């Protein structure tokens, strides 16, 4: 089996897991549980989906770690994809600012993971952290209101993830 064949298998597996994580996110987000639990699945969805698209994009690359801006670049490139022409049509003129705001939002989602948050900000969706005032907080103490359903960018981000999950293919 050649490296591209192996990576195609990995890409499909990452995509399947991302799709399942996203369904889990939606189910958790519809409950009264603390928002950190749903956001944990949203962060994992985004990371695994970006990895699936990356493995499809560089068939001889090894399964890679995701850098902090990789998710943002992934989101920007979903707007650049050939299917975006079908999808956006004349709306293309309106997406200039939406594209960048969603890329920045994806970067914020990536920082919800403690491995990334450690270097940038302590707030994350899995482990306790020490706040600036010395208080030790657990993720369940934080409402994560900036990732709530009233945030328009959040709603657009969820729509984009749905599209990206649906449109994924392994590039031969």
């Amino acid at each position, binding site marked *: 089996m050649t490296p591209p064949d192996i990576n195609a298998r990995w890409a499909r597996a990452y995509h399947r897991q991302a799709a399942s994580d996203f369904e889990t996110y939606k189910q958790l987000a519809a409950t009264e549980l603390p928002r950190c639990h749903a956001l944990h699945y949203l962060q994992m969805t985004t990371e695994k989906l970006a990895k699936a698209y990356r493995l499809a994009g560089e068939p001889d690359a090894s399964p890679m770690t995701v*850098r902090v801006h990789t998710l943002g670049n992934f989101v920007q*490139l979903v707007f650049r994809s050939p299917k975006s022409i079908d999808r956006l049509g004349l709306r293309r*003129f309106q997406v200039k600012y939406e594209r960048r705001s969603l890329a920045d939002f994806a970067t914020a989602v990536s920082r919800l993971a403690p491995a990334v948050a450690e270097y940038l900000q302590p707030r994350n969706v899995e482990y306790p952290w020490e706040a600036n005032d010395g208080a030790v907080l657990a993720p369940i103490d934080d409402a994560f209101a900036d990732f709530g359903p009233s945030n328009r960018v959040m709603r657009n981000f969820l729509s984009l993830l749905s599209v990206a999950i649906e449109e994924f293919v392994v590039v031969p």
Partner: protein
Amino acid sequence: MTDRRRQAQMLVDAWLRDDDTLVRVYAFHLLVDRDDAPAEFLIVSGSALPTGRVEPFGFGPSSVVPFPTRIAEVPSDEFEERKDDPGYLPAGWRLKDAEVLVARDAA
């Protein structure tokens, strides 16, 4: 102009419409014998986020671009600084062999 070249240009025209800061588009493996072979594009844009390496993502065909693509985007300053570094570009992406579809100054 071949079909693939024309279809690629439609994709690039769409990119230009929503990005005033896009300055270069390089195409790799655009003109090949197989219509279903992927084409690769490197976008150099002031709106790209820095990753320290060219990271392509793979996309399926569409009604306008009926072949798969691999697309990467890098910031202009990072590209100028690092374009000759070994390992900055993916294997098989050589700038000297690329077709330049866009070359312009930033708006």
